[in-house]
């Protein structure tokens, strides 16, 4: 593969970002949009070309350096690319969704004074995300990891005069930093045990590492890989918003909707999933770490799904859905079904980006109203948005033949087949989650598009359907949301698509196990009609219909009868309350106490230190 060509893929969006960011005034609004869209479109074409080379031309995996970051103590730290099919898949997904979002932005941000700045940020994001997925070493992975975090920070706080936005972006960054704390320790652990930050070297050393231990507490030795993998996964918990580090994602909806689709649904938040899949050669050797992954993922999948059911803000419903779906992907990782996780990541990227952009279209049409209680009956007034949303929704709940069906059903099957401790709990969670997914998804569809119009005077007066610059991307995303599962399941899961990019030990290989039952995508779908997930999803849709359209009074009644539960859910299990009133407050108080108290008595501390040293020296 041509290294120069590879280099251009991330570089084009970077150049476009610099142009739009630094020379935004000079090139104007149209110029900024044109240059960034051209950049990401070119990089999308190149990414597809890379995929074609790997898939059709049979070009071998590329693993090479771009330049030397530094070399010290014999440790060569490089910036470099590893381009295998896992990377190529991510590159295509990232650039394609990014392209759709770029085009959509022209319409969505049309009246915003920060137009150029916005384009600059999303192109910069595309660059960072590409560097992350294309990396061949832990250092660059961390670079990309933090870079996407910063762009996310800038974009959540894009409307910087809103107090809620600048609170949300700081919160997002800090919670992610808690994850990065673990991530960095994991990376340091990799260097400690393998002597290298390169994937290839580290992965090769993994089987030998399985016997190594690390003493954390006196006399208590931990398997090295368990420590490393849990540390790395803590990083993934931050970025991919797993309980309890999920708290930043719902608040990130303060940012403009296009980035909710691009960053907080389709790409950045899936970086953690990608990372664990990429590290499968390490994780495979630690059942403890994978059980941990499984339980965290399952908890996120079910309990975040509940929160979608009671929310009335259209974007937040989709956000909680994203949390829940990320939990699903994490469960797949924990069950050693890495390829299924990536498969679900891909289908989810398309249908969730679609749902977010559709929600954004509704919000624009409603003149920046996000409360679903003030919507209703939009089906006739925004037909394209309605039908594409419906495709997205059907994909999300796992309707047979839709993309989400294939990935989610395979995922549930894989968890069912897993023997790992925690798999039983996870199976229950993902199964129950199917019902709630269908419930909140169709509650949203029904409240927004069906029933009587509940638009207030203001929204009614300003209502206008969106233009094709916003509808076009919806259609472009609806196509893969519909078809990609049907097309991709056989090669991706059972056709050795990933080759050596994903390593699964024989004893853990649940995907191969479900592969025995697989006889093509059609029979897979037909078979599903007689399995619990299908009926649970159907029940969810019916329940949504009942509560929203048929008997709205029942919903109110349930809310009253189960008020304690409702309070628990409305307060999001009190995570935010705890973080703000306990952790943040305690930190500020501690800081004050150490400052006012500690520095005042610094003199006595010096005296104490001198006495301590004197005692030490004389004692020897």
């Amino acid at each position: 593969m041509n290294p120069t060509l590879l280099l251009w893929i991330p570089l084009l969006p970077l150049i476009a970002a610099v142009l739009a960011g630094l020379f935004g005034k000079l090139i104007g609004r149209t110029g900024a949009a044109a240059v960034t869209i051209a950049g990401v479109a070119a990089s999308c074409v190149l990414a597809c070309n890379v995929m074609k080379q790997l898939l059709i031309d049979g070009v071998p995996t590329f693993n090479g350096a771009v330049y030397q970051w530094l070399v010290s103590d014999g440790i060569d730290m490089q910036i470099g690319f590893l381009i295998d099919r896992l990377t190529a898949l991510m590159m295509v997904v990232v650039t394609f969704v990014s392209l759709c979002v770029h085009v959509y932005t022209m319409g969505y941000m049309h009246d915003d004074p920060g137009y150029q700045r916005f384009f600059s940020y999303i192109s910069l994001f595309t660059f960072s995300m590409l560097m992350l997925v294309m990396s061949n070493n832990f250092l660059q992975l961390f670079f990309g990891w933090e870079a996407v975090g910063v762009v996310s920070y800038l974009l959540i706080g894009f409307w910087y005069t809103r107090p809620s936005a600048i609170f949300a972006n700081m919160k997002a960054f800090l919670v992610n930093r808690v994850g990065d704390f673990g991530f960095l320790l994991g990376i340091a652990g990799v260097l400690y045990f393998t002597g290298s930050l390169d994937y290839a070297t580290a992965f090769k050393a993994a089987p030998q590492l399985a016997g190594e231990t690390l003493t954390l507490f006196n006399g208590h030795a931990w398997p090295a890989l368990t420590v490393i993998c849990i540390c790395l996964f803590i990083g993934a918990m931050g970025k991919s918003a797993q309980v309890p580090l999920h708290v930043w994602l719902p608040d990130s909806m303060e940012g403009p909707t296009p980035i909710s689709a691009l960053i907080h649904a389709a790409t950045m938040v899936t970086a953690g999933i990608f990372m664990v899949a990429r590290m499968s050669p390490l994780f495979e050797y630690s059942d403890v770490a994978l059980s941990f992954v499984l339980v965290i993922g399952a908890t996120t999948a079910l309990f975040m799904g509940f929160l979608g059911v009671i929310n009335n803000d259209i974007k937040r419903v989709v956000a909680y859905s994203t949390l829940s779906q990320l939990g699903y992907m994490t469960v797949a990782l924990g069950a050693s079904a890495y390829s299924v996780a990536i498969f679900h990541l891909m289908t989810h990227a398309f249908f969730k980006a679609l749902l977010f952009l559709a929600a954004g279209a509704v919000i624009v049409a409603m003149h920046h109203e996000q409360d679903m209680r003030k919507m209703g009956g939009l089906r006739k007034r925004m037909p394209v948005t309605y039908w594409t949303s419906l495709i997205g929704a059907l994909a999300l709940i796992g309707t047979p033949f839709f993309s989400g069906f294939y990935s989610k059903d395979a995922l549930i099957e894989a968890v069912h087949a897993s023997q790992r401790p925690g798999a039983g709990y996870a199976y229950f969670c993902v199964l129950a989650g199917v019902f709630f997914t269908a419930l909140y998804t169709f509650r949203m569809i029904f409240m927004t598009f069906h029933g009587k119009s509940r638009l207030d005077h203001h929204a009614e007066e300003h209502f206008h359907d969106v233009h094709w610059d916003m509808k076009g991307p919806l259609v472009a995303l609806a196509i893969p949301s519909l078809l990609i599962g049907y097309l991709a399941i056989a090669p991706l899961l059972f056709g050795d698509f990933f080759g050596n990019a994903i390593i699964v030990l024989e004893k853990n290989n649940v995907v191969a196990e479900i592969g025995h039952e697989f006889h093509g995508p059609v029979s897979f779908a037909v078979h599903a009609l007689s399995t619990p997930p299908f009926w649970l999803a159907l029940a969810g849709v019916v329940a949504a219909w009942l509560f929203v359209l048929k008997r709205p009074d029942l919903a109110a009644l349930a809310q009253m009868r189960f008020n304690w539960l409702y309070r628990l859910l409305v307060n999001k299990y009190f995570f935010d309350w705890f973080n703000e009133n306990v952790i943040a407050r305690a930190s500020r108080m501690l800081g004050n106490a150490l400052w006012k108290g500690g520095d005042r008595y610094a003199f006595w501390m010096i005296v104490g230190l001198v006495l301590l040293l004197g005692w030490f020296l004389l004692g020897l």
Partner: protein
Amino acid sequence: MQGTGLLSLLIWLPIVGGVLTMALGDGRAVAARWVALATSVATFIASIPLYTGFNTATASFQFIEKLPWIRQFNAEYYLGVDGISLPLILLTTFMTMPVVIAAWTVIEKRPAQYFAAFLMLEGLMIGVFAALDSLLFYFFWEAMLIPMFLIIGVWGGPRRVYATLKFFLYTFLGSVFMLVALIYMYLKAGEYSIAGFQALPLSLLEQRWIFLAFLAAFAVKVPMWPVHTWLPDAHVEAPTGGSVILAAIMLKMGGYGLLRFSLPMTPDASRELDWLVIGLSLIAVIYIGFVALAQTDMKKLIAYSSIAHMGFVTLGAFVAFDIQANTGNLAGAALGLNGAIVQMVSHGLISGALFLCIGVMYDRLHSREISDYGGVINVMPKFAALMVLFALANAGLPGTSGFVGEFLVILSAFKASFWYAALAATTLILGAAYTLWLVKRVIFGPVGNAHVAEMKDLNGREMLVLGVLAVAVLLLGVWPAPLINVMESSVQHLLQQMVISKIPVG
């Protein structure tokens, strides 16, 4: 390698320029400031051959100059650089330029003397890093206090007398211990050369006392907890330029001293007492991180942040012994030492830039209180972009220089102990917390008050200063290899000195 007088030029050019500036007098301020600018730029340009002509393959001193100085004491005018001092000298010549430019029209009181003080300070600081004779080192070390004392004392804020006295007493008292240690070693060795002291066999008892005497001097300068309290006071009272130089260069003297004196001269005591330095380093990172969170004054916040960042320097410098104890070899120890030096350079750029940013705001609003600001981005978008960049760099964002040193030190610390790394890595959270909270309160949000609404965005001069620093911060973060390559041989050599016992046999 025999020098060409380049180091002498770097030391004396700014001092002569300073004298010239002062001679022009405050009446001819325009001429004085142009002379000052020309001198600082010339000094920087003159320092470039130091880098380009530096042989990275050897750990021995280069650009050596050696002349008899005080014959009675066998003290010499002995200069030279290696991979440890070279980056710091370049940092000094580089950072003096923004200080001069930033003060351009801002300083109205005795401008010529102000510029003169900084130029002389520059020469003396280069002298500290270039001296290979301990007495010469000590001379520069103490002489340097005078201009800084004046800068804070003359151009400082309302409590400047208190701050200068505290600054002076702390650093001076610490230095006295160092002088005693130097004299003791002179009496044993019969010379003052640093290399001689490094080769001088010393019993463990001697080493302990010498180590602690050095630590007293260097810990105050770094500053390490609990002898750090002079720094926030000095920063708050110092004029912008004073804060920049204080944070960017003078704090580095402590780290440099530990690398040049403590570790190679008293390796056995360093090994024995490394728990002390490591403990204080980790306290600096965590304790001071929390203290920074509580600050309401921007300068104090950055001052505390500096102490926390310096914790990485001292941690990286002393972690080698525990690596050897834990793993049985020294692999990864050089990462810590390299990280310590990179952290010094990077902190010089970032903290300097942040103090300049605060200076920019102070010039407009005459307040350092965080609560007096809010929504600065609305009126100063260019400034806000740069300030956010430096803030992120301060929080150790990869791609900026702030990441490199911390990353290397954490990698290295993990080899010594998982817990060292874990405690040090809390800076990821704490550093981001205090820095981004500052940004949130000052930069973002709706326009805070009528005074903020009247703030004007950066002028060309300010843009130039901050822009150049931004480029440096990014460049070093994206490609630190040119810096590390310079240091590697010297760091490996230092590591060898550290692990070979100096206790006389028998």
